């Protein structure tokens, strides 16, 4: 709580600097909607993103605002209640009349807001890694699509660790389900027999992991190298890693790569027994670049020394800056003009290299694989070139024929076989 006060002071100082800006007449003040849950189950992750947005906006205002106007954040709380995402999105677009929305974490909340965004022609930036299979005209996906996280991590398992048997453990919801479907197909294509892939789904917040861990160990009984690909979400990871540590499974025996475990999640854990297990993201706080050092310092200054940065924060960082540049290029915040200006927008990643916004509304970003260290951070051991995000995966037969190209084809779901646009709205 007290940190907030500290930060508010910072923002106030920023507002003072930007005073000259706000003094000008802005017929139409620029409003940025922030649609992240501040209460309920998802507050754990999303509050950080709300803070990120406020920091970014304060920084931008300190740097002179946008189009000569000050940017105003409109923060609402959809309270982890999915229908509320639709309701609040409508409120933001029609009542507060925001120019852009940054928000959502879970896929279901995005799918809840989608129809409203498309109906009212709004614009939303979605910052979290997700299962793909979607490309809305009104959403820019700044998080990773499966081919920017899951596939490279699986390649790493196959190539670098020589894993022959896979345990795909996930929480029972859409992201793990779809990702595991894609990975299963991908592994089969890579020559891993179907019986060497063990899939298990557990509920949110699951805590009784002993049987599942024993099942995973048992997979090694035929002498294969076993690896775990974890799409376990949130709190359940804590019990899972505790059980792994208790069973004495080191990363050398059975490596675990997680797609939903970042710096924030590790802060609830004693990581000394988990050293060497892996995570795949597009960003780690330990990335050794100047831009990242600055960003981490700004974040810690605003929020407190013990706070960590993570991947979705970088997604918002890139997304917001791209949006600012696109608005500057277009000279207006009009959604259609900004969307046109977004394509091909480039912005430096915090991890080095440049992110590019593609016509399918996804980013090209590098994929990083990190090993957990004893201090709860990640040691980056592999970093690829920028990988273009793929809205429709190539590894499922139904979506392999689909592409998204809003720039030239003007369609987010274009069937290359029949050469027709399946639909202009998205499949919520």
């Amino acid at each position, binding site marked *: 709580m007290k940190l907030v006060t500290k930060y508010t002071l910072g923002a106030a100082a920023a507002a003072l600097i930007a005073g000259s800006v706000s003094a000008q007449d802005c017929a139409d003040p620029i409003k940025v909607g922030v649609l992240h849950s501040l209460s309920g189950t998802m507050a754990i992750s999303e509050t950080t993103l709300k803070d990120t947005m406020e920091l970014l906006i304060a920084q931008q205002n300190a740097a002179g605002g946008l189009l000569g106007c000050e940017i105003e954040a409109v923060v609402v709380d959809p309270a982890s209640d999915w229908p509320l995402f639709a309701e609040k999105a409508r409120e933001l677009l029609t009542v507060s009349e925001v120019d852009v929305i940054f928000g959502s974490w879970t896929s279901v909340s995005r799918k809840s807001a989608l129809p409203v965004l498309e109906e009212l022609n709004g614009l939303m930036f979605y910052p979290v890694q997700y299962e793909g299979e979607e490309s809305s005209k009104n959403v820019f996906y700044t998080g990773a699509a499966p081919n920017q996280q899951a596939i490279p991590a699986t390649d790493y398992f196959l190539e670098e*660790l020589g894993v022959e048997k896979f345990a795909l453990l996930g929480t029972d919801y859409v992201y793990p389900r779809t990702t595991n479907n894609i990975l299963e197909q991908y592994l089969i294509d890579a020559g891993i027999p179907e019986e060497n892939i063990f*899939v298990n789904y557990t509920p949110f*917040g699951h805590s009784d992991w002993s*049987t*599942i861990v024993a099942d995973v160990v048992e997979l090694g009984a035929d002498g294969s190298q076993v690896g775990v690909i974890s799409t376990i979400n949130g709190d359940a990871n804590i019990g899972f890693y505790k059980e792994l540590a*208790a069973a004495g499974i080191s990363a050398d025996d059975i490596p675990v790569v997680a797609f939903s475990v970042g710096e924030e999640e590790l*802060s609830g854990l004693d990581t000394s027994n988990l050293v060497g297990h892996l995570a795949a993201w597009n960003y780690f706080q330990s990335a050794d670049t100047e831009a990242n050092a600055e960003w981490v310092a700004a974040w810690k200054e605003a929020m407190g020394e013990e706070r960590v940065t993570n991947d979705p924060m970088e997604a918002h960082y890139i997304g917001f800056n791209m949006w600012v540049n696109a608005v500057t290029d277009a000279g207006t915040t009009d959604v259609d003009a900004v969307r046109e200006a977004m394509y091909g927008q480039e912005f430096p990643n915090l991890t080095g290299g440049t992110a590019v916004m593609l016509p399918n509304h996804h980013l090209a970003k590098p994929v990083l694989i990190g090993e957990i260290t004893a201090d709860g951070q990640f040691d980056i051991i592999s970093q690829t070139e920028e990988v273009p995000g793929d809205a429709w995966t190539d590894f499922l037969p139904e979506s392999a024929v689909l592409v998204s190209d809003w720039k030239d084809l003007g369609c987010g779901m274009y069937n290359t076989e029949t050469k027709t646009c399946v639909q202009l709205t998205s499949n919520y």
Partner: protein
Amino acid sequence: MIRVLISLTWLLASVSVAASQDVQSILQTHAEEVAKPSRKSVSVVLDDLVASGLPQAPEFLEQWAERNVWRNNATGLFVIVTEEGDDLTFRDIDSGETGTASEDGFTQLRPNGGVRRVIGTALVQFQLSDPDPARRQSALDSIARRGEASQLEPLVASLAGEDDPALRARKEQLITFLTARFGEDTDARVAAIESLSADTSVEARAVLSQILSANAGVATDTPEGNIARILDPMEDPTASYGQLVDAGLAPPIVPVGAVRSALEANIVDGRVGGVPLAQLGDQDMRNMAYGALAADGTVPPLVTQDDITVALENAVFFERYSEEDTTVTDAARATLDAIETRVGLEQTFDLALDGLSLASIYFLAAIGLAITFGQMGVINMAHGEFIMMGAYTGYVVQLFVPDYTVSLLVALPLAFAVTFGAGVAMERLVIRHLYHRPLETLLATFGISIALQQIAKNIFGTQARPLTSPDWLGGALVISDNIQISYIRIAIFVFALLFLCLLLFILNRTRLGLEVRAVNQNPGMAASMGINPDRINMMTFGLGSGIAGVAGVGIGLYAQVTSEMGANYIVQSFMTVVVGGVGSVFGTLAGAGLIGFLQKGIEWLNPSNTLAAQTYMILFIILFIQFRPKGIVAPKGRAAAD
């Protein structure tokens, strides 16, 4: 071509260089592979280093794996480095000369897990007879992970000098494993294989399975070689036919989509194969049109179901061992079969242990409720929040007391005290007024529950907090590879037992227990006998809440501490109490046992979906309550009167 040439010259160079030069020059020859190592490319470096026979090579490899090797960005030289803040103390690999430098000009080499494993394998021959037991151990670990034929000889050679009994036993075991897989002489292999018949470990089974590794194949007549078994293609006709197609023995099935595109490509005057376009909205008509096209030879013919059956009947599907010696595979098969039976038994036992552990967790979570609900008939929806309060107490204690053992010893009584106090306060302020309105206690305590949950969120944040168990509770009791249970679960089980005894003692052997039972059976009569029911109710409620707090510490140790952790247990706990029978400690025990074992049983039947197991469990409980509405152990006293 050029690459081949280069690598050839490299090879030549390295052979000549290795004999005469130092480690650094070998590294420089393969600088790229050293700086950015990959499992697949690193072996060339390792081979050269090992072949060089240089005394510094093993040390370099160890340091490399430990990430202590850095590269000088300017000169490209590799050095061994000790980090001190931003400064580096570096040491020349060959000469051992030391110096210091700032971190800026150097890049740390970070071999990944796969590379480290390959390095470990390369190090084996150096470490097997190393004076340091830790190094010998790591060599043995490497062999256990990735056994190779070449390791057998040095391993046997090192056995004579081994004085550590544990390592010696391990070496003998690994020699058996390696002999079974790679031994020269069939008799020795069979003997080694048969000696494994009592070994249910994952490693032993891995050895046998690797000997028995087989490839599926298909042929037109009886195949050659060491055949594992002949398969029936009709078990999975689609897959079998796919195998035939892959082997080039049958034409591929034309997919529906391909039929469609073929038709589209062959439209003549609004007709395909004589069928008008408008009629093609029907699969049979499409097949007819396609058949007409196929008859003309424009497209490959459709593969019908009959074609598939005929093709499958005329082929032999088999699995062939990669091991050619039948004696060895027969022995391995027989031994593995014998082991599997034992493994099955062990796994059943392990499952029972898991069930027992789950039951004890449910019991611990529910026992407090058994008192408040069972003895007093009070529905306490905030029970879960008392569990949470206990867990957070543990977390706060750990903030102040860094030693985990001491903090645990402090946390347990403190958690009891905190939740006892909270329970007493709640009883005095709220529940006391609602004894005659049980349904309303449910609602009022629910109000308290959401308020407490939110307050916890406001204080501790939504992020899960760490509650770390002391080291002596880390790890697991390993009876065999298939039977193991973590110490923390054993501790929870012991905990649950202790509580059971304590509670039975309090209820049956103390004055307080007598009074509690008296008030439970007939409050009016008890009051007239001089018992103060108010005080007893307060104490009972405090006791139930206090126990919930202690349970919270236990649960927090093995799972996550969040503001919602209590809510995860509340419905389960109520069901445990209701299924067991309200008002009886043994009933709760029976309820927890039933639910714990049942859940594990259902999970075992459907291992890939834990959520489904929970659903069926609850359905079972609903049905169970229909048939035994008062639970396993039917209640007496106040609760029975409802």
